[in-house]
C-alpha cells in the first residue's frame, strides 16, 4: 500500500506517475505546533503537492505560512502528524542521507575545519577512507573553496560558509536536496553569485530540489515550478510553471516574460502577505 496508489486519487497526476513516483508526494499533510502554553497553531492544513523526480521546485509564501515546516517534514526531522509524505515511493519516517538539507544559517560544525565538515557526513556512508577524502576534495573544489580546507567556519564569510554547507550536503549525493532559504542570510551580490553557481551545479547533476525562499525573483530564476502557499494555515494557493524562464544565464532575468512572471507571482504572494498581516 506504500508505493502505488490507485490512479483515482483526486489529484492532478502526471502521466508518469503510473509507476511508483521517484519524486516527492505530499498527501493531505497537516501540522500543528503546540506551544508550551497557549493554543495550538495550525501551520499546515491539508496540503497536497507532487514534486517530480529531478524537478526544482520553489516554495514561496508569506512568513509563517509553513514553508519551512513542510521542508522539515519532508526531511523527516519532525513527526508527520496527519497525512503522508513519500519520497521516491517510500514513506518518510525519519531523516536519511537520501535527503540532504541546507539551512539558512549554514549549521556548520564550528569546531571542524572545512574539510572535516564535508567529511563528517561521508564517514557515515559506506565508503573507504580514500573515497571519503577524494569526494570531500572534489566537492570543496566544486564550490570553489580549494585552499580553505583547513579553515574553520569562524574564519569564513557568510557566502563561503554556505558554500561549505552546500558542498557538505552534495558530497553524500542525496537524491533530494532540501534548501531552507539558503541564500537568505547573504548580501545581494553574494546571493546572485550563489544562485548562478547553484544553477551550474544543478545542471551538472540534476536532483530533486525543494527550495524555500521569500524572494520571488530567486524562485522564478531557479525553479521549474513555483508553489505559492497561502497565509497560515499553509495551503497550496497556486503552482506556477516557470520552467521556460529558468536562467541558463542571468540575461533571462531582463526579459519581459520574466518580469511579467515575477509580477504575477508577487501579486499572489502579496494577497497572502496582507492576509497574514491581518491575522497577526
Amino acid at each position, binding site marked *: 500500500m506504500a508505493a502505488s496508489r490507485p490512479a483515482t486519487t483526486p489529484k492532478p497526476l502526471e502521466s508518469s506517475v503510473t509507476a511508483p513516483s521517484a519524486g516527492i508526494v505530499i498527501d493531505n499533510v497537516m501540522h500543528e505546533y503546540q506551544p508550551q502554553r497557549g493554543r495550538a497553531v495550525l501551520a499546515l492544513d491539508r496540503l497536497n503537492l507532487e514534486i517530480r523526480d529531478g524537478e526544482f521546485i520553489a516554495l514561496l509564501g508569506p512568513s509563517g505560512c509553513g514553508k519551512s515546516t513542510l521542508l522539515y517534514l519532508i526531511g523527516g526531522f519532525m513527526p508527520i502528524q496527519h497525512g503522508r509524505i513519500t519520497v521516491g515511493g517510500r514513506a518518510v519516517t525519519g531523516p536519511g542521507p537520501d535527503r*540532504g538539507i541546507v539551512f539558512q544559517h549554514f549549521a556548520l560544525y564550528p569546531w571542524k575545519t572545512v574539510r572535516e565538515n564535508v567529511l*563528517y557526513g561521508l564517514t557515515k556512508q559506506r565508503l573507504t577512507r580514500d573515497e571519503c577524502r577524494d569526494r570531500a576534495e572534489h566537492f570543496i573544489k566544486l564550490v570553489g573553496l580549494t585552499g580553505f580546507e583547513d579553515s574553520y*567556519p*569562524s574564519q569564513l564569510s557568510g557566502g563561503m560558509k554556505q558554500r561549505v554547507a552546500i558542498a557538505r550536503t552534495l558530497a553524500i549525493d542525496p537524491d533530494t536536496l532540501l534548501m531552507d532559504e539558503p541564500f537568505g542570510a547573504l548580501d545581494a551580490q553574494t546571493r546572485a553569485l550563489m544562485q548562478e553557481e547553484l544553477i551550474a551545479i544543478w545542471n551538472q547533476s540534476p536532483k530533486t530540489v525543494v527550495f524555500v525562499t521569500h524572494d520571488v525573483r530567486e524562485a522564478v530564476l531557479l525553479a521549474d515550478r513555483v508553489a505559492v502557499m497561502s497565509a497560515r494555515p499553509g495551503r497550496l494557493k497556486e503552482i506556477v510553471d516557470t520552467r521556460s524562464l529558468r536562467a541558463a544565464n542571468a540575461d533571462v532575468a531582463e526579459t519581459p516574460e520574466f518580469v511579467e512572471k515575477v509580477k504575477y507571482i508577487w501579486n499572489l504572494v502579496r494577497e497572502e502577505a496582507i492576509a497574514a498581516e491581518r491575522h497577526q
Partner: protein
Amino acid sequence: MTTVVSVLWRYTPLLLLAAAWEAVTRLHLISQNALPTLSSVIASLIRLMTDDLAHHTLVSVTRGATGLALAIVAGTAAGVLMAWYRPVRMVVNPFIQLLYPLPKSALIPLTIIWLGLGNSSKIALIFIGCLLPVVVSAFNAARGVDHLLVWSARSVGASDREILREIVIPAALPEILNGYRIALALCFILVVAGELIIANNGIGYLIGFLGEAGDYRGMFAGVLTISLIGFAADRLYVLAMNRLLVWRG
C-alpha cells in the same frame, strides 16, 4: 624575550601593588603587626620552603586536584546526560536544586564526622562544591546546542550515540570548559577552608597554625603561596582552554 616584556607589562598593576605594599609597611603607614613587609614575607617564604612548605602544598594540591577531577568527571556526565535524557533530568534535578543554595562550608563539620580529619573529608567537600558549576554548565551547554547541528548530523545517518559524542559534546565544550574554570577557583577556596577549620596538614592548616603561633610573616607567606598557585593554575587553564578552542577564531 618580547614575551617576557609583554608579560611584565601586562602585570605591571600587580608589580605596583607589590611596590606599594613594601612602601607603606617600610614607611610605617601601616603597622607591621597588621601587615608585615613584603620582603620579610618573601624571606619567610624562602625559609619555609626549606622546611615543610612543599609538603603542605603538595598535600593541598593533591586534595584539590582529586576533588576537582572527580567533580569534572561526574559533573560533566550528569550534566550532559540530564540535558540529553529526560528521565536522568527528572531524577538528578531535585538533588541539584537542593545542593545549589546550600553553603558548602556548612558541610565541613559533617564531612569530618563522617570521613575523619584526613584526605577523604577534604576531597568530599571539594567534590561536592565543585560539582555544581560543572553540572550546571554542562547541562546548559548541552541543552543549548543548536538543534540544526543535531538535525544536520541526523540527516547523514548519525546514530543517537554518535550525535551525543561527535556533535553535542564538542558543540557544548566552550561552555563546559568555562564551568570547569569556575570549579577550579572554587576548589582552592574549599581546600583552604576545609584545612583551616580542622586538619593536621595542608597549606590551609599551615596558615592557621602559623597565625595562631603569632608568626604573621609565615602566615602571609602561606597565603602568598596559595594565591600564586591559584593564579598560576587559572592562567595555565585559560591558556590550555584557548588552545583547545582555536576554532572559535
